[in-house]
């Protein structure tokens, strides 16, 4: 098996080169040197990895909800592939966060075999999640999902392309692998966006409405959070404000091929003085996590 998204590879213990760090499921960073580069603050690196990891985890979760619900079998399979890619990125990023600063990992009962990346995914409350609000909303119809994937993947591709030069070798390798995946996600979303925009009257109406749903939360991706500022300063991360212009050009291209006007809906404001990166989320995240974490939390010393 050389499927680079096959989640079963780990069951066979085959040697496989397609994973950034092998595919040993027991420890995603097994054998990887996680020593911090000079000038990199572990706590800042961990906080930054949580942001990128939570974006991937939460968006993956939403996409996975399309399984058995997509418009056709081919699309069911495509969305699952994208969700699997993002889940893989999330796993590596959360593991990197835990290795960079073990204090971010929630405490579990003594003797719990739950690995740190799972403790981060399943035992943090919503206020500790650092994803942008864009990725956490309910799926809505296929147009909303398409619009969200377009905005998210365009941003993430621009980000990962730059992150390949991170001074943290682990982050750089995660980014290098992710670039290939996310380029595909962006292409998928852009093609559907144009198809729906130029399909039928109904699909065009829905595509516009879908863009209006997600557009107000788009801006948050480019607002520099103090953690991101530190990440850029120390050379392990990227200041997202610097991505806005490039991303905008690409989105404009897709909109124009689709004959779509740029949405004019106003941006969603912060909550108090914070937003997703500060743990200030929409109501949807709490509900999502209640479902996502229910089994894991019922068995804090369980083995899976």
């Amino acid at each position, binding site marked *: 098996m*050389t*499927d*680079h*998204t*096959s989640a079963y590879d780990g069951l066979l213990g085959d040697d496989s080169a397609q994973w950034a760090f092998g595919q040993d499921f027991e420890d995603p960073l097994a054998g990887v040197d996680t020593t911090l580069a000079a000038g990199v603050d572990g706590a800042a690196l961990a906080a930054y990895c949580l942001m990128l990891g939570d974006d991937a985890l939460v968006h993956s979760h939403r996409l996975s909800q399309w399984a058995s619900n997509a418009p*056709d079998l*081919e699309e069911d*399979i*495509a969305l699952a*592939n994208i969700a699997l890619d993002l889940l893989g990125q999330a796993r590596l990023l959360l593991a990197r966060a835990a290795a960079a600063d073990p204090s971010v990992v929630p405490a579990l009962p003594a003797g719990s075999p739950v690995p740190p990346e799972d403790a981060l995914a399943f035992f943090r409350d919503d206020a500790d999640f650092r994803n942008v609000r864009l990725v956490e909303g309910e799926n809505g119809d296929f147009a909303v999902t398409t619009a969200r994937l377009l905005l998210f993947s365009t941003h993430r591709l621009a980000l990962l392309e730059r992150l390949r030069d991170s001074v943290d070798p682990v982050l750089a390798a995660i980014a290098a692998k992710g670039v*290939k995946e996310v380029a*595909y996600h962006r*292409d*998928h979303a852009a*093609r559907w966006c144009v*198809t729906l925009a130029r399909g039928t009257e109904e699909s065009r109406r829905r595509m516009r409405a879908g863009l209006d749903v997600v557009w107000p939360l788009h801006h948050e991706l480019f607002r520099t959070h103090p953690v991101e500022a530190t990440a850029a300063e120390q050379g392990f991360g990227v200041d997202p404000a610097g991505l806005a212009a490039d991303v905008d050009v690409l989105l404009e291209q897709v909109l124009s091929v689709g004959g779509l006007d740029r949405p004019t809906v106003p941006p969603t404001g912060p909550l108090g003085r914070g937003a997703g990166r500060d743990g200030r989320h929409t109501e949807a995240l709490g509900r999502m996590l209640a479902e996502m974490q229910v089994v894991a939390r019922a068995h804090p010393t369980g083995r899976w």
Partner: protein
Amino acid sequence: MSGAPQGEWPLYEVFVRGKRGLNHVHVGSLHAADDRMAVHNARDVYTRRNEGVSIWVVRADAITASSPDEKDPLFAPAGDKVYRHPTFYDIPDDVPHM
């Protein structure tokens, strides 16, 4: 004429070259609205986006096929379809076990 009911995406046949030096071989079929979507879907369905493989897609109704046995005069040329019976069959309603 695709033989597909109205609204259904046409059927495509998918051919994949697993690695350099090999022929493209038929791996299966899928539905897509157009050629580009067919290549894209083929990558997701049949190669899981394994890089380096080459994919051909062709609409099933664009394939001209020989008849099963051209030498036998009893078999009039069966036409130009990949499948000889592009009609729809009523399936009996009583379908017990599986």
